[in-house]
């Protein structure tokens, strides 16, 4: 028997775009369910730079994208403050970069209204000691750093709190249409294999790089370029603010601070498969060499992992510029009723993390119009609850570093966190030292709907995101999960194998001595001490 549900709107894709749409619709009082094939932020939304664009990067080449970015930048700082660090940013011209571009850039910024301020090189070096000492010109812009994990999770959680629906680990396997109108979608539970059918008037395809694939399920043709970019994570945070290279956008241009690390990149290579997140050692090496123009030390500073994600770039015709960077970064909102004669089907694609709210607004406007709903968008002023809490944690036996972490991180989880601190023996113990994640935080973050998965915890708490990439904390978390009844032995072991594999995937391509030593220690702990099998060994 297939279970059946009924709703007004089904949104496919738990990335930041889908998150924005489900919240927007829920705020308008529309019944909506978000369906995600894995955990939330499985796709590009967790595989990006985390730059809250000021628009500066697009000022010269894409005026609309620049205007949208700056406007959204200001709105997001107010409405999702818990996921944004207002770092500010610098655009830096280094020797060899085109002077004309600088003039053009300044003119464009002025035209579209992005505030810039020239900073003396001396002052810039004082603020950012890792910057190239030979820098020739520096300008300040209102860039920011956004945490895409918390952003997406918090937006969805707020929607859920207001009655929105969420199905994680459910893959949409088919979309049925009847008389030129979508009728229902079928989803499959990843863990049980169970099929569920959701009847709905509207289906919104927010599947990012998978959007073309999802469109095909509804027999709608679509061309999408998936342009893969690679990024690396530095072991330390080297910059207070965002550092951009002041030239026509290219590779290895940006350093974005992200809590305790700096994210550096990126590149652009078109790929065929939406889930191609492969990494190439030569590409990484070239990127680092290029990045040295802006931050010379990048060649020496330890990296802890690399990752890649795909920009879904919509093109109306198959033969437009295929280089990736030339295609607009603006959004593509497709009303398939007009475009393909399929009522109730909408695709939202392209765009940026920075503009997700605006993309969601336009998409929800269209859906509301189709449903005859009058209520307008309020996400430009209705804030998502802040992460920072003023609750006093000093009475618990937390190290100052761990206390700082929860103070900036607890958000709406604060009740569960305090409950854990009250009731659990190990609550104040730091499980992940690199990122100062306590057991209380983990306990407060356990998703209730699914079997134990270390990745779920990582995305919600930063567990295992630091220097040792889970060498120590994964096994501690797994052991405590079993001890406290959150997981069976088998689930814990499966989670460990999976976590080890995904952490190593991002480490191995770095190929440097330090990472090799770190993975060796990882193997020593998991394969020697804990007797787990090394991947591939069984096939030898």
């Amino acid at each position, binding site marked *: 028997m297939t279970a059946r549900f009924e709703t007004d709107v089904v949104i496919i894709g738990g990335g930041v775009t889908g998150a924005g749409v489900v919240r927007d619709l829920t705020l308008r009082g529309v019944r909506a369910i978000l369906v995600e094939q894995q955990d939330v932020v499985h796709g590009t939304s967790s595989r990006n730079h985390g730059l809250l664009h000021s628009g500066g990067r697009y000022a010269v080449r894409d005026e609309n994208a620049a205007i949208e970015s700056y406007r959204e930048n200001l709105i997001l700082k107010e409405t999702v403050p818990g996921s944004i660090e207002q770092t500010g940013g610098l655009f830096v011209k280094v020797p060899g970069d085109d002077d004309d571009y600088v003039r053009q850039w300044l003119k464009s910024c002025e035209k579209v209204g992005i505030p810039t301020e020239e900073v003396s090189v001396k002052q810039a070096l004082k603020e950012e000691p890792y910057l190239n000492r030979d820098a020739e010109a520096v300008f300040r812009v209102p860039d920011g750093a956004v945490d895409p994990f918390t952003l997406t999770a918090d937006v969805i959680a707020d929607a859920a709190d207001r009655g929105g629906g969420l199905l994680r680990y459910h893959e949409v396997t088919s979309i049925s249409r009847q008389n030129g109108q979508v009728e229902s979608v079928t989803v499959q539970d990843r863990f049980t294999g169970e099929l569920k059918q959701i009847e709905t008037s509207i289906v919104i395809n927010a599947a990012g790089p998978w959007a073309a694939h999802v469109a095909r399920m509804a027999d709608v043709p679509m061309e999408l370029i998936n342009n893969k970019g690679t990024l690396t994570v530095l072991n330390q945070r080297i910059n207070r603010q965002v550092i951009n290279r002041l030239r026509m956008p290219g590779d290895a241009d940006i350093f974005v601070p992200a809590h305790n690390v700096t994210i550096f990149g990126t590149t652009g290579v078109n790929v065929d498969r939406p889930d191609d997140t492969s990494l190439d050692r030569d590409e990484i090496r070239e990127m680092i060499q290029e990045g040295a123009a802006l931050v010379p030390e990048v060649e020496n500073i330890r990296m802890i992992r690399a990752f890649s994600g795909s920009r879904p770039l919509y093109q109306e015709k198959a033969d437009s510029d295929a280089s990736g960077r030339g295609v607009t970064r603006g959004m593509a909102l497709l009303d398939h009723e007009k475009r393909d004669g399929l009522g109730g089907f909408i695709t939202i694609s392209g765009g940026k993390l920075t503009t997700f709210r605006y993309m969601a607004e336009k998409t929800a406007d269209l859906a509301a119009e189709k449903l005859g709903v009058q209520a307008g968008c309020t996400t430009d002023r209705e804030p998502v609850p802040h992460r920072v809490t003023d609750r006093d944690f000093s009475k618990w036996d937390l190290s100052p*570093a761990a206390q700082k972490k929860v103070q900036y991180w607890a958000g709406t989880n604060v009740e569960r966190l305090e409950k854990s601190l009250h009731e659990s023996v190990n609550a104040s113990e730091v499980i992940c030292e690199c990122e100062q994640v306590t057991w209380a935080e983990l306990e407060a973050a356990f998703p209730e709907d699914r079997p134990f998965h270390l990745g779920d915890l990582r995305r919600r708490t930063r567990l295992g995101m630091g220097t040792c990439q889970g060498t120590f904390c994964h096994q501690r978390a797994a052991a405590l999960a079993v001890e406290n009844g959150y997981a069976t032995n088998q689930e814990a072991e499966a989670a460990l194998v999976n976590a080890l594999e995904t952490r190593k995937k991002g480490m191995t391509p770095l190929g440097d001595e330090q990472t090799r030593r770190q993975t060796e220690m990882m193997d020593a702990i998991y394969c020697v001490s804990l007797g787990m099998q090394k991947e591939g060994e069984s096939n030898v």
Partner: protein
Amino acid sequence: MHLQGLNDLDYNSCLKCNACTVSCPVSNVTLDFGGPKHLGPELARLTEQQEPIDDKRIELCTLCGTCDAVCPEGVPVSSLTANVKALHAEENGTKFRDFVLSHAEYVGKIASAFAPATNLTMKIKPARKVMQWVMGMHADRQFPVYRFNNFKRRYTKKTAETKRKVAYFTGCYATYNQPDIGDAFVNVMKHNGIDVAVPKQKCCGVPMFANGRMKEGKKNAAYNVDSLLAYVRDGYDVVVTCSSCSLSFKKEYLHYLNSAEAEELAQHVYDANEYLRFLKEKDELNEDFGAIGQRAGYFSPCHMKGQGIGNPAMDMLELIPGYEIRDLAADCCGQCGTFGFKEEKYPYSMKMGESMKEAVNELDAEITVTECGMCKTQLDQLTEKKTMHPIEVLAKAYETV
């Protein structure tokens, strides 16, 4: 270009392996201390380009440097913890007590001027109780004795005329508390035909670093580098009888001063026994030792272990006919410079000293030999054995015919 300032205290090679915390003498006796990994490389990483984090537990770090010695990746752990100490002192102010303790020299000058009175106050219980209230120094703690006739008064030679010339850095302990070490060193050198000059010098700065008073420590360091380097450039070798002072020249100054001068000086600094061993390698050592029939246990101070030069004191003492020297192979003594004087640290200090006490009792030798005056304080407190500086034993062997 080498970005000294940026990478000098590089914590990036930390693999989080815990070797430092497992070996830390303090972590081994208490969970109240956050451990060198967390308070060193980890905290540095968590605060880089972000707001600083003041962690009170840093007060328990003794800067013994064991963490540096055991780190397989060469992370300068104790320099990182010293920075956290400095921050903590800045945020909270230093106690008057810590001011007194970190100014061994200042106190030494005053105390040795009134030596009999000071020693009396230090010994009388009621006065000690007052010190515990007012200053937070533990009433049961034995203090080093201050000498009226300090080494500065005894020995004033500022130049040397021999082929090899030694510039002697005396250190506060040999200057104010045990000038006999200074005398012994000058005698040992005399037996090797080497003149000893005592350059102008200030406290090496180690007690200031340990109490988070970085600015003053660095000021002293700069003064000493200036003064000693002039001798080096004149062909002198710089020799030191205190293991903490010599370690500071070899290690701390490089981190804190970060100058070419500090690097240059470090190339010419020797621990006293290391220097004698060097003379032996050059075939210049006078090995005319008289026999001493004695069983002795050698206690290696953390700051000697941290120099990574083996046990030069044992290498020398083994040359004395009849002298039987055994390595006590014990962990940190727990006194740790000024640490063990503080009221709130006293219990930790006593606990840390246990393993040393056991080692001394087990070996049951006639005396204990160690280079460090602070280790001696703890040995005096926890064991019945007499404690001597190896140079004193060597001087005795030269005098014995």
